[in-house]
């Protein structure tokens, strides 16, 4: 018998369980006596744990005291946050001279100012801003943090960095307001829109060289007191190591991953051996090797400071982990994408840079950020080889005479700090994933 539907079926509202919170709760948590009992019991356990922690950490806690004895005198059962409070500068800056702390803060602010345009709408040429933040900013920050005499190289880099940060900021402001780039704005400002392209370019180059000269003169008289790296510590040191690690692990990983997939045997074998060697060693071993064995291989009189050795070790180690992550992403991209790029005349680098890598990195965002988070947490291992990073500082509190034996509160504080930083990173990665997703994938078998 033939069936013909004359009228299209009108849509009906979804059942309660799909559309409202109350419906969901009722169906999933209170749908039987057994489940109701379990739900209530779990709620009670959570209440006991949280309220106990609350009483210890907040209502009975001591925030101001001159030593641990006084903490006990005020409240026996409460947390002694006073120790953490009195060490807060040490926890964040280590033994950095207190009069020079502004340099660390300025470094942090500069990084934020430098990177902020990347997240602002309507700003053009973001790739240059990102690249300059990775390759130029470290020199400026390095000088800010260490100070001392600038060699000719440092003078140049500081000059370039100053021009970059000024240009970036101006460019970003113009971008947000008018949606134009800095050169476009300058040309418009000087009423040179009608001029030939060559004249425009000469004008811009002229302005650029004047700025460079001005910056050079400015930085010549700018000199900072030397602060030895041995005084660096706390959160500041953790962020320096992990920041450099994060900034170099991804590019390093990309290079190693491409090397591993290369058709040239020598490059492939080299990449594979580096990757597999570092991945089969624990980080702590690599750190010990970097600080104790690495100097043995160097020519006599060649002394690298311990911090640089540690940073190199962390960078190499995580570049190798990142290489495997990136390789996974590359394998997820259908070979058809490469073929299509070849057919419009792209060679190897354009194919990789414009077609394959952007997609591979996008697929791998959760893993890449996961590796970053792991890196950040693993830098605490440097406290074992004698650098006072945030963990080193937190443990040092318990050896300080007034606070002898105070372990719990500092470590809990450290846990909270790490949780906040890592949670923000993973939330941001989730946000990126959603933002960069371009509909479901089709056409790639």
């Amino acid at each position, binding site marked *: 018998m033939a069936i013909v539907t004359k009228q299209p079926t009108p849509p009906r509202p979804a059942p309660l369980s799909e559309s409202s919170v109350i419906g969901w709760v009722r169906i999933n948590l209170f749908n039987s006596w057994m489940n109701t009992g379990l739900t209530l019991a779990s709620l009670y356990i959570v209440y006991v744990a949280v309220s106990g922690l609350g009483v210890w950490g907040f209502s009975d806690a001591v925030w101001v005291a001159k030593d641990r004895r006084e903490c006990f005198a005020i409240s026996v059962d409460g947390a002694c946050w006073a120790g953490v409070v009195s060490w807060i500068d040490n926890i964040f800056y280590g033994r950095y001279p207190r009069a020079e702390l502004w340099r660390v803060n300025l470094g942090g602010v500069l990084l934020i100012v430098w990177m902020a345009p990347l997240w602002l709408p309507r700003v053009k040429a973001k790739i240059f801003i990102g690249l300059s933040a990775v390759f130029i900013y470290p020199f400026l920050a390095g000088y800010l943090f260490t100070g001392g005499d600038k060699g000719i190289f440092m003078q140049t880099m500081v000059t370039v960095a100053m021009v970059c940060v000024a240009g970036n900021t101006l460019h970003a402001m113009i971008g947000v307001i008018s949606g134009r780039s800095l050169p476009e704005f300058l040309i418009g400002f000087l009423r040179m829109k009608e001029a030939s392209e060559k004249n425009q370019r000469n004008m811009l180059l002229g302005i650029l060289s004047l700025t460079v000269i001005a910056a050079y003169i400015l930085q010549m008289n700018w000199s900072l007191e030397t602060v030895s790296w041995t005084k660096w510590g706390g959160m500041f040191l953790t962020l320096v190591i992990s920041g450099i690690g994060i900034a170099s692990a991804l590019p390093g990983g990309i290079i190693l991953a491409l090397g591993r997939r290369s058709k040239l045997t020598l490059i492939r074998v080299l990449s594979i051996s580096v990757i597999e060697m570092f991945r089969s060693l624990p980080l702590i071993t690599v750190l010990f090797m970097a600080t104790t064995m690495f100097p043995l291989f160097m020519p006599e009189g060649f002394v690298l400071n311990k911090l640089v050795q540690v940073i190199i070790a962390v960078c190499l180690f995580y570049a190798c982990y990142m290489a495997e992550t990136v390789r996974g992403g590359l394998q997820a991209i259908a070979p058809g994408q490469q073929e299509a790029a*070849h*057919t419009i005349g792209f060679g190897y680098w354009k194919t990789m840079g414009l077609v394959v890598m952007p997609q591979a990195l996008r697929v791998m965002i959760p893993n890449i950020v996961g590796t970053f988070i792991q890196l950040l947490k693993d830098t605490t291992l440097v406290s074992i080889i004698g650098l006072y990073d945030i963990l080193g500082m937190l443990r040092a509190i318990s050896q300080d005479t007034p606070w002898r034996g105070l372990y719990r509160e500092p470590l809990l504080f450290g846990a909270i700090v790490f949780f906040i930083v890592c949670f923000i990173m993973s939330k941001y990665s989730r946000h990126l994933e959603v933002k960069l997703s371009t509909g479901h994938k*089709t056409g790639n078998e």
Partner: protein
Amino acid sequence: MNNDRGNPGEKNMTSTKTSETPAHLASAASSEVIIELNKVNKWYGDFHVLKDIDLTVHKGERIVICGPSGSGKSTLIRCINHLEEHQQGDIVVDGITLDKNLKNICHIRTEVGMVFQSFNLFAHLSVMENLTLGPIWVRKMPKIQARDIAMKYLERVKIPEQADKYPGQLSGGQQQRVAIARSLCMNPKIMLFDEPTSALDPEMIKEVLDVMVELADTGMTMIVVTHEMGFAKTVADRVIFMDEGDIVEENEPNAFFNDPQHDRTKLFLSQIL
């Protein structure tokens, strides 16, 4: 089958053109040779895929290649833009011999467009960016000009309104038309089609074939691997039947379909028609 929203005028034009005879279309081909294959051999490992293939294609000629799967027809056209490397014989495209010289290969690829069975649109780029990527980075074209050209071709494949969408948001037929437009944006001299309609739902095949028929009318040199025999009958100047790495039979479409010579051709045609 309704292949397009709106634009009835253009659709009419298409349908009248499809009904034109192959004899009329054949006059588009000139005597200038644009592709020449001479005793081309290729192996995948021990498997001999292409056996002594000789083929000459003239400018403006439209060739349809058909044959059972595994017969080497896709491999053949993939050798023409060097997506696959051949081991013996010569391939000369637009006067340039394909060898290990990467510069030559890149140059040839800019002159030879290719459309794949699985579209292979760049999934991370919008339709417009897919179309302008090649012209901007390879032809060094200014962005605005590249966009104008891309829009022109999007209109030609009748989906200008999809310019800002991502490939994942389009239907298969629309994606394939974007892929054709992407190749055309490079202004190629030759277009290769590797089973362009095999991955499509039946109701989307016609919209892609219509675009290809229109392209044929502009005098483009085309080599099409397809099982769409209707397309072969209306558009092709020559039909090539391949089996087990050999060109078994080669003839103009009328004779090919009505009077096949070889037993294997007869068997193949009896199975698909």
